[in-house]
């Protein structure tokens, strides 16, 4: 005999969306009505298959599942839910006649949360649904908190690692800047004296001619060779000076200052440095460098050390992946790095493109995340692009994105506002 208390049973817990699965229309109607009376929203399903469809399309908090149904019964639905990672956590209360206790036991051990005997006792119904929804709510909350904590931990780790790398780069930068500076002085002497010495040859010839001393052919020949050598010394000293200047620009430690920057020049210097950096480690490395600089681009307000680091990084990546493809394909493939700038009015655009294997769609989303790398262990830190992203997006209020066709190319696009507005 069923007890019918005068007062309306209520659930203290937050109401949820309850799926009522019941083949008999009368039972379905009554059960739905009772559940709605508890403050819950309801959905119904008349058989197991429909129940699974609803479970896949809606965010359901609790399932009231009739055991005996034609076609696909409650046990089969429960079994499929438990085998499905997306539905496994959704609580299920089995609904059964008193004569079906064996099935109830089976379902509880198969993962059903609880059961409700027919005919329904309203108090029992309210208590069990309430307890189930409350448990579900707590579980959801716990999962959300855990996810938040994991995310926070991940961010913390990333920030720590970035700080460490920035710190290392800064001290390495200071060291490099010191050395570069020390090299620059003697390099200047070499260059300048080579130039001066070169000029002396002209004067020497003039002197000899004016005293009327004809020169033997072989002396003339040696003189010309000497002059040529002097020219070479001068030329290469200038080249070395260019590289050292680039190093100085990139490596100056400490906080960078905002200044008006010749973007084309900064980019050219960075690309050059990236190329030389790779050449220094692998003398056999060759790459075709294509440059298309928009002469109208002019000055951009930026922190050159940081922005240069972005270009260095993107160009370095480009060279690396083009080289990898060359290793794979062999001689017929020409690794190419194309660098392009374009004036967009108040903004400027830089495109750095390599013809390596491109960025697979599957990794594109994680590309700018810290520690994400596709390079082999020990080659990449997985921090280059995340730091670049920070510098371009956070610091310079710009955009950094990638376009790629797998197997064909990867193109990194940096868009920067021309003027700096301090935050």
């Amino acid at each position, binding site marked *: *005999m069923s007890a019918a208390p005068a007062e309306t049973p209520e659930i203290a817990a937050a109401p949820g969306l309850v799926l009522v699965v019941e083949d008999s229309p009368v039972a379905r109607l009554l059960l739905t009505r009772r559940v709605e009376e508890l403050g819950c929203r309801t959905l119904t399903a008349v058989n197991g298959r429909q129940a699974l469809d609803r479970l896949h399309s809606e965010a359901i908090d609790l399932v009231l599942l009739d055991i005996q149904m034609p076609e696909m019964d409650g046990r089969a639905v429960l079994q499929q839910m438990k085998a499905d990672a997306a539905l496994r956590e959704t609580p299920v209360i089995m609904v059964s006649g008193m004569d079906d206790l064996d099935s109830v036991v089976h379902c509880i051990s198969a993962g059903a949360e609880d059961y409700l005997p027919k005919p329904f006792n309203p108090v029992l119904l309210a208590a069990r649904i309430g307890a189930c929804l409350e448990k579900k709510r707590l579980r959801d909350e716990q999962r959300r908190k855990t996810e938040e904590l994991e995310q926070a931990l991940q961010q913390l780790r990333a920030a720590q690692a970035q700080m460490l790398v920035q710190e290392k780069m800064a001290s390495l930068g200071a060291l490099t800047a010191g050395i570069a500076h020390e090299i620059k002085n003697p390099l200047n002497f070499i260059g300048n004296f080579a130039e001066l010495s070169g000029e002396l040859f002209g004067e020497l010839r003039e002197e000899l001619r004016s005293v009327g001393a004809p020169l033997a052919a072989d002396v003339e020949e040696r003189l010309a060779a000497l002059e040529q050598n002097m020219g070479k010394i001068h030329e290469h000293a200038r080249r070395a000076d260019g590289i050292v200047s680039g190093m100085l620009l990139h490596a100056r430690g400490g906080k960078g200052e905002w200044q008006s920057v010749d973007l084309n020049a900064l980019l050219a210097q960075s690309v050059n440095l990236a190329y030389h950096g790779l050449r220094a480690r692998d003398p056999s490395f060759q790459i075709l460098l294509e440059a298309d600089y928009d002469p109208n681009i002019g000055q951009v307000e930026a922190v050159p050390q940081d922005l240069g680091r972005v270009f260095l990084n993107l160009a370095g990546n480009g060279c690396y992946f083009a080289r990898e493809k060359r290793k794979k394909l062999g001689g017929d493939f020409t690794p190419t790095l194309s660098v392009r700038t374009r004036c967009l009015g108040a903004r400027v655009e830089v495109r750095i493109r390599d013809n390596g294997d491109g960025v697979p769609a599957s990794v594109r989303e994680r590309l700018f995340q810290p520690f994400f790398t596709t390079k082999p262990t020990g080659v990449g830190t997985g921090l280059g692009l995340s730091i670049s992203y920070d510098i371009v997006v956070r610091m310079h209020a710009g955009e950094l994105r990638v376009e790629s066709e797998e197997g064909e190319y990867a193109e990194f696009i940096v868009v920067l506002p021309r003027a700096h507005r301090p935050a």
Partner: protein
Amino acid sequence: VATSADSNDDFDPSVLDELRRLADGRKELFTALLAAFEDETPALLLAMRSGVAEADAAKLRTAAHTLKGTAVNLGALRLAQLCAELETRARASRMDGAESLLAKLEPHVRRLAEMLQAECQRLA
């Protein structure tokens, strides 16, 4: 709880009270219950009859079980009891006497429909 064949004991008064409480003074619930009952029951009766005629115990058992559930939900004690008896017999494949049980059962189906109709009218 009534177990005799007396027609006064056809319905469980506490279930009826609970249904009335759920209906909350409006006829919608009973109208919907009546529609659902009239939608479901004829096919069940047909299945039970052909189950008896064809000595198809499984068919009879399934239909009797479903009708029993509906009867229990609506507090129709006698109907539920007769369905349970039929179900038990069918489960044991004892089909003798099934026909007379079915004949006894049919008036109770009508009475249940009448009860629902009466509630609809009372609340109209």
